[in-house]
Structures are given as structure tokens and as C-alpha cells.
């Protein structure tokens, strides 16, 4: 199978080269220039694109941009960036020569409209979406010393994490990595494992991320099975036109635990990370390459790790309208396995019988993305990917699992008229597993979709779509479903926007949910060959209002009805963990956010509150690991070259956890859980004005050394201090 796959890769590459050979010699020109602010400082990361086309780029660290391979004609360019007013340059005429522009952007006090890619699988503005969406800027990772994407996602309104499992508006509880109700994609390539269907956050090279877009609510009509709760799309950095080397590192220590009983090591435990990355362009070929090493001596005993992340992105531009991207992401991890505490007096230590558990993981993702703007109306996007996962532990009889996931997608974006964009595609995947935990099952899946976004002049944008998915899980009966969606976005006033969406979602069980058979640390998991697919119906109504320039308010109410929701539980007859279909579950709530610019460009306050009511309608009990109240707030101050930020996060005490693990005496004192209050401080200084391209950061996380859990028997990181730097040469 692997041989065949490589053969298809080769044939596809060759075909693309042939198709584009004629374009290599065409006479073309470019529009380039420098983007600065009103103080003549270069503005990096500005989105530049030609209106009514899919052609665009972003400015580099020195504010340079270049759109090349353009034919003679008249173009309208749009420049947009967070923190700046949008600028539109009309009537740029190319007549037998390239154009150079010097662009000056004015600072804005309210976040301008950003360009999104994920929501409709083509570029849309956030303010024009029918669904709620959030953006994390790539700079956050360096500035706040997030070495794992999951750490940043924790601060997104309406999103909670239970250890490494994401829950968008309460979509998921905790199932030790099995299954996910959110789809993670990297530059549009879905990123889930072939066996457990889980998201491996730690594999994403955060230093390579330009921004992360999070779409809330069922997105199955475009993205298929895994997107039943939402989508997280990571967009990697653009390739630099000139040589650019970035060195990014941090060193930190965990403070001593607040309680002496927990101070098992008697030391402050260190952690560190270093990333080297380089980007350059030679003619039509550009690349980003990076290598990251992370090491942690954990605040918990038997929880240390070493991780190595490799990343390569190369783009070959056949012309300004067609390109081929090759992406490789590798990950190696050697770690100890902390499952749960010994008891509350030994909360940072594992039970004696579980000491010295180790695991080694190797994961590889390879992808090819081909884009071709066939003409002003049609954009073709074809991508294939291969994702290999292997892990092995050190049990007496080792658990080992290898999964190979192959997938491909062909998508066509059509600007049928100036008012209608049609996005259609077909997607297929095949997964083969060889595992001591799940057996050797295979999974096939196929999806066909089409979504039309229609813009009216009043101004109303409607979105109507349909997707059919079919999934066949080894010996189980195949299952399929049609997922329709409908949404609208209505700009009542320039500062008042209404949005609403109605859609259904579908998720087939993962191989691990159906076939897991294992025993670990007293927990026995058994397979469920009768497990069925789950589906949901999502309704959202939202509004966005800016009563005056310094204030932006957003409100959304939502209701998710889940049918046959797959949740882990304990079979009372034998005490074994098994994944079963809950008959009905309901998650409803509201989400509010406020962004206040107290001092323009200097002092910003943000508040986000989410209320969630998540119930199993059969038993009337709350769904596990779903807090009822979530509140995030932040203060951000920037002046001169200095910046300071305080972030606060609160989630109410979750009502239901895995009570069976307490009843069976597996997790002693497992009933202990509290509301979450964490406060982080970041201080930063930028030396760029002195001519030295260096940023330094000091982070103090969990300032008040507050002890809490997200998962039963697992204390989250205690207070820690870290120093980081980012050097761009």
C-alpha cells in the first residue's frame, strides 16, 4: 500500500509539472512594495490580495510583499492586518512592466476584518461568516511561551481543554485521546490519527504558525466526520522572499509545590525548548524548514519528556496562479506516563505500581497541496496526505500500535457570479491499523460536498450547503449521512451584524472506539462491535455590535442536539470501560465577549463569558467534564518597545467526572476537584528599534500557584517562570 501511495505521489507531481510547463515561459509582471505604519515602521503579516481573485500574499518581517506572475491588466488590491485600518488600492494598471507600491497603513483601535480561510474552505472575512469564529495570532506562541498549541487553545472563548482533548462549546468530555469532535487541519490538511482519530497537538510546530482559526459549531457539511463540534485550522508562516533565520528558545522552572507534602523532588524542576528555522526562496522554489527540541523535567514524578519536531514546507510556483506545496511534519517523543495521582497527599506522584511506565511515539505527516487558479472564476485545490503513527510502551507485554492514514481531496471554488461562490469537493480516506490494542482493522471513508455562499446587496450573505459522508469500519456495517447546513450574515448597520446558522453534523466511530481491548493501571477497556455513528443538529444565533470605536461586543446563543452521542462509560456488569451510544444529549448556552480599547493601541481589555448546559437527556445528569461557566479575561498594555499582559481564566467546577474510577478505588481521592482560577503574566521587550532583531519575554504562569485538575487525579501545572527570546536574522 505504501509503495502504491508513493507511486501516486510521483505520478501526481509529474502530471502537475506537465500541466504547468507551458506557463513557465509566459510573460508576466509583479506588484511589490513595502508596507509601513504611519511612523514608517515596517508592518509584517499584512494580508495582501487582489480583489475578486484568489491571488494574494502576506508581508514579511520587513514589511515587503510581492505578487508576481501577473499579466497585463487593471487590479484592485486590498491590504488588511490586525490593528490597522483596511486599505483598498484601486486601478493599479500593469502595462508591460512591474509595479512598485509603498503602502502606509493607519493604526486602528478596533481589530479590523481579518481574512479567514477555513470557514468556507476559501477566503472569507470573519465579519461575513454565519458562524462564530476566533483567531489566535502566531506571535502568541512565542510571546506567551506556548510550546504546545493546546496551551493557547485553552484561552479561546467557549473552548475548554481536558488535558489534551478539545471541547468546543462542550462538544467533548474526556476519553484518553480516543476520538475528537473537532477537526484539526494544518494548511487545510486534516490532522487526525488513523486509529484513535485523536488530535496530536504537541506535534504541531508552533513556531511555524502564522495564525490559528477556530470555527465553532458543526462544520461537517464541509469538513466531514471529525468536524461535528468545530474546526481548528493552523496556517503556517509564509515563505520568506529573502534568507530569514529565526532562533527561538526558552528556559523555565517550575516553582516548588504549594504544599510541602507534594514536594517529592525537593527541587525546582526545569524545562526548556529551542527552535531553529530557516526560510528562503530560490526562483520559483521557496521553503520553510525548522527543527524543535523540547525537554521537561516535570513538576510531577514520572512525567518527564523529550520531544523532537521537524517541519518542512516547500512551495514551487509554476506561475502566479498555480503552485505545488509539499509539507512534512515529523515528531518523536520519549516520555514517562503519568496517568493519575497516588492520592491527595501524594498528588504529584503516581501509584507505586504504575511507576516507570514509558512510551515512545513516532509520527510522520506528509502532504502535497496543488492549487491552480484556472481562470478568474475557478480555483482548483487538490491535496493528498499520508499520516503514520506508531507508539510503543514498556509494559511486560508491550502495547504497540501503528496506523497508516491515507487521504485525498479534490476541491473546486467557483466564483459563479460576483455574488455567488460555490465550493464543491470530493474526499476519501483509508486507514490501516496494526495494533495490540485495536487489532488490525481497516477504515474506509468517502465524502462529497457542495456549499454555495450567496451575497446580496442589502447586505446579506447566505450560505447553503450539503455533504454526504459514508464510512465503513472494518467488519461493522457501513454508515452514511447527509449533512445539510444553512446560514446567514446580515449587516444591519456598519457597526451591527446579525448571524445565524443551522446545520447537522455526523461522526463515525473511530477504530479505537469500536475495537479497543486493553488493560492498563487497573482500567480495562473492552470493544463494542455494536457501536453506531453519532449525529447532531446545531443552531446558532449571534450578533456583533460596536456602539463606539473603543468597544466591540459579541453575543451568541447556541443549541446542540446530539443523537447516539458516543461517550466512554463503565459497563456496570463487568466494570470494564466501553464506548457506547448515549441515546440523546443536549448542549445549549450562550457566549458573550467584549473587547475594550481603553487607550488606543496601548491598553486593551477583553472579557469572554460562556454559559453551558450539557445534559444526558436519558439520565438527566450533566455530561462529563463540561463546566457550566467559563470566563476568560485579559489586559494587554503596549507602549514604546515594552509590553505587558495579564490573562485570567475561570471555569466552574465540573459537575460530573469518571465517578466509577473513584468507586472502584482506582483513583484514590479522585472526587477532589475545584473551580479553575489561573492567572498568567507576560512581560516583553522589543529591541528592533535599536537595530537588533530580538524580542525577549518573561512569563509567569499560574501566578498564585493554584492547584486544580482538568482530568481526575491530574494536577495541572503549578506556578512556573520562563524566559524566552526570538531572534530573526
Amino acid at each position, binding site marked *: 500500500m505504501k509503495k502504491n501511495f508513493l507511486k501516486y505521489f510521483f505520478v501526481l507531481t509529474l502530471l502537475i509539472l506537465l500541466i504547468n510547463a507551458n506557463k513557465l515561459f509566459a510573460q508576466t509582471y509583479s506588484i511589490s512594495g513595502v508596507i509601513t505604519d504611519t511612523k514608517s515602521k515596517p508592518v509584517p503579516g499584512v494580508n495582501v490580495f487582489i480583489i475578486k481573485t484568489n491571488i494574494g500574499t502576506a508581508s514579511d518581517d520587513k514589511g515587503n510583499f510581492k505578487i508576481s506572475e501577473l499579466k497585463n491588466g487593471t487590479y484592485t488590491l486590498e491590504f488588511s492586518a490586525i490593528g490597522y485600518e483596511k486599505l483598498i488600492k484601486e486601478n493599479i494598471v500593469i502595462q508591460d512592466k512591474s509595479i512598485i507600491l509603498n503602502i502606509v497603513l493607519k493604526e486602528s483601535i478596533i481589530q479590523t476584518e481579518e481574512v479567514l480561510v477555513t470557514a468556507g474552505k476559501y477566503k472569507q472575512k470573519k465579519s461575513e461568516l454565519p458562524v462564530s469564529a476566533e483567531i489566535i495570532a502566531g506571535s502568541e506562541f512565542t510571546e506567551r511561551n506556548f510550546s504546545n498549541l493546546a496551551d493557547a487553545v485553552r484561552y479561546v472563548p467557549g473552548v475548554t481543554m481536558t488535558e489534551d482533548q478539545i471541547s468546543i462549546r462542550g462538544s467533548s468530555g474526556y476519553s484518553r485521546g480516543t476520538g475528537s469532535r473537532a477537526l484539526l487541519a494544518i494548511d487545510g490538511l486534516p490532522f487526525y490519527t488513523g486509529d484513535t482519530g485523536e488530535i496530536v497537538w504537541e506535534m504541531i510546530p508552533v513556531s511555524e504558525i502564522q495564525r490559528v482559526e477556530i470555527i465553532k459549531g458543526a462544520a461537517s457539511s464541509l469538513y466531514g466526520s471529525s468536524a461535528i463540534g468545530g474546526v481548528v485550522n493552523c496556517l503556517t508562516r509564509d515563505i520568506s522572499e529573502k534568507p530569514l533565520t529565526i532562533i527561538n528558545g526558552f528556559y523555565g522552572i517550575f516553582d516548588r509545590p*504549594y504544599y510541602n507534602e507534594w514536594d517529592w523532588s525537593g527541587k525546582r524542576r526545569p524545562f526548556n525548548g529551542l527552535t531553529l528555522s530557516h526560510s528562503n526562496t530560490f526562483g520559483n522554489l521557496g521553503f520553510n524548514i525548522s527543527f524543535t527540541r523540547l525537554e521537561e523535567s516535570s513538576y510531577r514524578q514520572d512525567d518527564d519528556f523529550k520531544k523532537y519536531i521537524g517541519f518542512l514546507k516547500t512551495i514551487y510556483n509554476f506561475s502566479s496562479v498555480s503552485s505545488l506545496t509539499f509539507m512534512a511534519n515529523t515528531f518523536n517523543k520519549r516520555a514517562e506516563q503519568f496517568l493519575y495521582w*497516588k492520592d491527595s497527599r501524594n498528588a504529584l506522584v503516581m501509584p507505586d505500581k504504575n511507576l516507570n511506565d514509558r512510551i515512545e511515539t513516532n509520527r510522520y505527516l506528509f502532504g502535497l497541496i496543488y492549487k491552480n487558479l484556472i481562470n478568474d472564476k475557478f480555483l482548483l485545490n487538490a491535496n493528498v496526505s499520508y499520516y503514520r503513527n506508531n507508539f510503543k510502551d514498556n509494559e511486560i507485554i508491550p502495547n504497540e500500535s501503528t496506523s497508516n492514514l491515507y487521504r485525498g481531496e479534490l476541491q473546486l471554488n467557483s466564483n459563479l457570479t460576483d455574488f455567488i461562490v460555490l465550493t464543491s469537493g470530493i474526499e476519501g480516506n483509508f486507514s490501516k491499523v496494526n495494533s495490540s490494542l485495536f487489532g488490525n482493522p481497516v477504515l474506509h471513508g468517502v465524502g462529497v460536498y457542495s456549499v454555495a455562499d450567496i451575497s446580496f446587496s442589502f447586505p446579506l450573505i447566505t450560505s447553503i450547503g450539503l455533504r454526504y459522508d459514508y464510512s465503513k469500519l472494518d467488519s461493522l456495517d457501513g454508515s452514511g449521512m447527509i449533512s445539510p447546513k444553512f446560514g446567514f450574515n446580515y449587516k444591519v448597520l456598519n457597526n451591527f451584524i446579525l448571524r445565524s446558522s443551522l446545520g447537522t453534523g455526523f461522526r463515525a466511530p473511530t477504530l479505537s472506539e469500536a475495537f479497543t481491548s486493553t488493560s492498563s493501571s487497573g482500567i480495562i477497556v473492552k470493544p463494542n462491535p455494536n457501536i453506531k455513528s453519532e449525529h447532531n443538529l446545531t443552531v446558532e444565533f449571534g450578533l456583533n455590535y460596536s456602539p463606539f470605536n473603543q468597544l466591540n461586543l459579541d453575543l451568541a446563543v447556541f443549541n446542540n442536539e446530539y443523537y447516539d452521542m458516543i461517550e466512554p462509560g463503565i459497563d456496570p456488569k463487568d466494570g470494564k470501560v466501553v464506548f457506547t451510544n448515549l441515546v440523546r444529549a443536549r448542549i445549549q448556552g450562550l457566549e458573550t465577549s467584549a473587547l475594550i480599547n481603553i487607550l488606543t493601541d496601548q491598553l486593551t481589555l477583553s472579557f469572554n463569558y460562556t454559559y453551558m448546559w450539557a445534559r444526558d437527556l436519558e439520565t438527566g445528569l450533566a455530561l462529563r467534564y463540561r463546566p457550566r461557566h467559563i470566563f476568560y479575561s485579559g489586559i494587554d498594555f503596549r507602549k514604546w518597545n515594552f509590553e505587558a499582559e495579564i490573562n485570567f481564566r475561570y471555569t466552574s467546577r465540573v459537575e460530573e467526572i469518571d465517578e466509577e474510577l473513584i*468507586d472502584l478505588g*482506582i483513583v484514590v481521592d479522585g472526587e477532589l476537584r475545584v473551580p479553575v482560577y489561573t492567572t498568567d503574566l507576560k512581560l516583553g521587550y522589543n529591541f528592533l528599534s535599536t537595530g537588533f532583531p530580538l524580542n525577549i519575554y518573561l512569563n509567569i504562569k499560574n501566578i498564585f500557584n*493554584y492547584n486544580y485538575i482538568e482530568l481526575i487525579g491530574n494536577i495541572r501545572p503549578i506556578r512556573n517562570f520562563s524566559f524566552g527570546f526570538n531572534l530573526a536574522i
Partner: protein
Amino acid sequence: MNIKYFKIKHCIFLLVLLTAACSDHGIEPKPVLKSPPGFSGTIRFISEWPDSVKRSFLVVFKNPLKSDSDFTILNLKFLSKEIPLGVQKHEFSSLDSAYIPATPGPFSSGSYSYVAVVQQSTENLSLARKDWFVSGVYYANNDTTTPGVMIIPDSTFVKNININVDFNNPPSQPPGGN
């Protein structure tokens, strides 16, 4: 709209939350118990062990076994390791290593409605009701008409939870068996 109002209101709100955040430290270690609650006793086998018995356990259920549905793992609060086959006397304690709870330690105080010795003839350990046969029951206060309730007061280690097993004269079986 008054911007100052917003500033003041939100700053106060944030301060209140920050104050709440630093006023306690969340989860804390439970205090050490002077006398951890638990139980111990002796099982006396007063007849010969049948050859059909493959394994035997001491079990403690929280709620009475009134119907088949009460026989669940979640009602089963103690499942000892196997009692050595053929012994005449077996002493036990809740501090011993057991299947349930998986981690030995203090046993939750409270009342437990059904304490018994059970036997199995299956090849492997089974938690299915049909594979369990009760060979002896704990009786309190010499009342052998109904199973005795084991009461463990707070911070008390209860001794003398004694059970007699007569394979030739087993007690009445709880519902749900063969």
C-alpha cells in the same frame, strides 16, 4: 455611552476575580487520619472444599442485593484477591491488596448491606452474576435470617467481621443467579 463607566466597572470586576484567585490554592491534601476506617475478620471453612471451586473471594456490596440490577460493579465496593483454595481459615483486612479497590488504603466509612464469601467455577475471573455462587454470608448480632449490615463509623477500624462457610449448606442466594 460612557467609556469611563466601562473602564471602572470592568476593572473592579477583574480585581474581584483576581482577589478570589489568590485567596486559596485549590485542591489541598486531605488530612492524615489518626485511625483510618476499614474492616477485618476471619473466614472459617467448616466443610471440605468441593473440587468444582476454581476460586473464592470476599465481597462487600454497598446496597442490598434485592434484584439482578443491584449486582453491579458500581455497587461492589470490595473484591478481595483469591482466597487460597482448601484452607480451613482465612484472615482478611480491607488494607490487604484487592481487586476492588484497586489501591489499598482507608475504606470509606458508612454502612454496607451485603458481605459474603463467593465461589466461582469458571476458568477465568468473571464479574457476571450467573458465574457467582454465595457460599457464606456475614451475619450481625447472631441473626442468621437476614444478611448483616457492616457499619464502619468515621475513623474506626471495625474488627471481627467473621463469616462461616459451609459448602454443604450454602445460604440463600441473592436474585439473578442461575
